[in-house]
Every structure is written in C-alpha cells, then in structure tokens.
C-alpha cells in the first residue's frame, strides 16, 4: 500500500483505530504528530518518522557500552537520549548484589550485545543478557549507522545480512540502536564497513542487495 508523507497536525483518519506511534486522537479524529510516512493497516494506524534517533523498544537487541558501575548494576550507553541499566541479576542468574565486585564481570568500556527487557513509564530502560545470544563483545570492531537504516542492513527475512556474512566471511551482530559489531580480519572488517556505508547511502533504492553482492565480489577479486 502506497504510503504518503504526513505532517504534524495533519488529519489522517477518523473513527476507531488502534493507535501506534506518531499519531494522537482528538474526539473522533486522528492526527499525525510527526513528519513521516503514514502506515495504516487493518484498523491500526501509525506514522513512521524520518528521524535519525534511536528510541528503544522492549524486545530490541542493542549493542551497548558500559559507562558506569553502580552497587548492583551497570549503566550502559545505547546511542539513545536515554542511558540503560543492566541489573546484576539480569546479567547472570546466580549473581547477587553486594556479593560480587561487578567490575570483575563487566568493566567500563566493555561492549555488550543485550536485549531491552523493559521500559518503565518514566522511560527507565532495563537490559537483560540472559537471552541466548547476549554476549560480551571482546574482539572486533564497532560501527555506527543511522538507526532508521538498520532494517535495510538486515533486509527482508535477513537476506542482506546473511548475504554479507556469507560473501565476506565475517561475523556480524546488528543492534537496533544503529550499532553493528564486526569480527574478522582487518581486511574483511574494512570491506564490511564500506558495505555498510553503501547501504546507508542507498537504503531507499531497489536492487540494493544485488549491487552490494557485486561490490563485495569486485573487492574480493581485486585482492
């Protein structure tokens, strides 16, 4: 369905709809609160912004960096207006506050792959590392892209991401917060970064996955 660009204050619908982000209701009328694309399906309506910021949602996988250690938790930077908190019991079930020196497990500067467990109404963000693929990222390189381009980096049914992994031969972890972790040789990492920049620039075009595959093969043959 064709999505149209809407503006703050624009009337987008009337009547009974479930409201997502970017819209608000006044009486029977529903208005957009954002500059973005109107997304309407089956009684659900929202506006997708063009913005570059990452606003966390529960369930998102994120790549964060430890910036402070408290008594029973770590403070984590997740490239968002909000810092996140990782409580010690969300790191490992068997650890209890007060019994351990937290810096033995995660020190300031460490990079982690975690999930957003919960966001309270006052926007306190809690992470958890007790999911299967949460890890501490010790080697490798961190790259930042515009958060809104992450879906394109992953691709439909992960098509883009899997292709990059396969063609370059590199480990990649993608955070919804615009951060991507690359693990491999220096050459492969450099190529992967070039690829990510290309995707960022051309995210809105079609045929991108094929063009990226082309680019990777050309670079590989060059070496």
């Amino acid at each position, binding site marked *: 369905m064709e999505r149209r660009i809407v503006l703050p204050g624009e009337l987008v619908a009337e009547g009974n709809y479930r409201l997502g982000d970017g819209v608000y209701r006044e009486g029977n009328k529903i*208005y957009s609160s954002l*500059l973005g694309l109107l997304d309407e399906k089956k009684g659900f309506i929202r506006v997708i912004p063009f913005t570059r910021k990452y606003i966390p949602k529960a369930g998102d996988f994120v790549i964060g960096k430890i910036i402070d250690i408290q008594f029973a938790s770590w403070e984590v930077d997740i490239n968002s207006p909000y810092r996140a908190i990782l409580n010690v019991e969300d790191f490992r079930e068997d650890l209890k506050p007060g019994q351990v020196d937290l810096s033995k497990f995660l020190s300031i500067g460490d990079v982690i792959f975690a999930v957003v467990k919960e966001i309270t109404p006052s926007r306190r963000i809690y992470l958890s590392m007790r999911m299967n693929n949460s890890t501490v990222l010790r080697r490798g390189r961190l790259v930042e892209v515009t958060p809104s381009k992450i879906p394109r980096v992953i691709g439909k049914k992960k098509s883009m991401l899997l292709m990059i992994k396969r063609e370059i031969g590199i480990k990649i972890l993608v955070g919804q917060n615009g951060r991507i972790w690359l693990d491999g040789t220096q050459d492969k990492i450099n190529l992967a970064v070039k690829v990510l920049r290309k995707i960022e620039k051309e995210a809105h075009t079609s045929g991108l996955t094929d063009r990226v595959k082309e680019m990777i093969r050309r670079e590989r043959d060059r070496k």
Partner: protein
Amino acid sequence: MKVGKPERLIVNGKRLDGRDFDEMREIKIKAGVLERADGSAYVEWGGNKILAACYGPREVHPKHLVKPDKALLRCIYSMAPFSVSDRKKPGPDRRSIEISKVTRQALEPVVFTRLFPRTAIDIFIEVLQASGGTRCAGITAASVALADAGIPMQDLVPACAAGKVDGEIVLDLFDLEDNYGEGDMPVAIIPRKKEVTLLQMDGKFTREEFEKAFKLAIKGCMYVYEKQKQALKERYE
C-alpha cells in the same frame, strides 16, 4: 522625533516597500539544511535570513535541570554581529533573552514533551540578517526544525506580526515600519484550533485597532503555515 524617521511611511496608499496594507513579504523556507543538527530549517522572509536548528531528545546537561516527567524544552535566539546595520556585539543581550523565552513558550504548548521524560530538546535560532519581524521568522523556522528532527507535536506553529503605521493597520512590518511605526504585534498560533501561543504588543491601539491588527496577524500566520508545510513536504520528495 526619532533620527532617520522617514517623513511618511505610507505614500499613495502603499507602504514604502510597495506593499498593500494586507500584503506579506516574500517567504522561502527550506528544511534539513544542516548536517550535524537533528533537525534544521532556513527561512528567508523579506530581508530576514534566519537559521534554526533542533537537537533532541538528548541528555540534559547540567543534570540538575532534568524534569522527571517530561522533556526540558530550551530555546536560544541569537543575532550574528553582522546581521544588523550597526554591528551587534556578540553575546546575549536583554532583548535576545526575552525573545528566547517567549519563543520557547510559543512552541512548548504543541510539543509532546511527556513522551520523553528526563531529556532535553534544544532549539537554536541564529539571525544571520535582520529586517523586521525576526522573532516571528525565528518561531516559524524553529517549528520546521522541530518537525525535521522528528519531535512529535500537535501541529506546526506559524508566527506573524501586524502593526500600525501612519495610523493604518498593516500586516508583516518590515524594519523601517518596525522601527518608526506606531505599534507592533507579533502573534503565533496553533493553526488547527487557532489557539494563540505568542502575543506581544508595543505601541498604542484602540480596541478597534487591536482587533483589526490581531485578526490580520492571524491571517498572516495561516499564510506562513502553508509555507511551513510546503517546506517539509519538499524535504522528502
């Protein structure tokens, strides 16, 4: 009598810049003109050239200003030294500080600050060239910059001034009229409900004159609103 005042501000039914009483100056607005800012807008309004940028939501510094239940909206209006004929010394003066405050209060009612507690939304307005009505142009630009940054709002906020010049009520005063006229009334509104978020006035108006100027300014705001919408739609076409 003020030095430099032209003998008449209205000659043969036209204003000194050739406009009719209810005619606006030319306005051009472009959204998304800066690389670093989260949102930005550039407005050329008559001889005014104004750049506005928005950063946010972002962390609040200094921390003690944090509001637990909403975003802190901050606004700074500033004029470049070369923006006026008599060079303005850099740094905030009392006029800029007041304009910063009323600008913030003109925009605050529409921003959904409760969606981003404990953050800051910062707005910066730089007047690069001034030619009368910079606060209205600044609010207009800031509103577009906020939308460009993806800040959720009830509506855009257009602003426009009307005033009295040689006894006549006119729309959108330019600098000579601003300096030498008999009254100036800048207004900003939430267009859909026509609610007023900025209203200031200096000069002397009778009750009739007030209403005429007020309604004229609101008409001007609606014209400005169309320009704001156009700029945002063009950003992504």
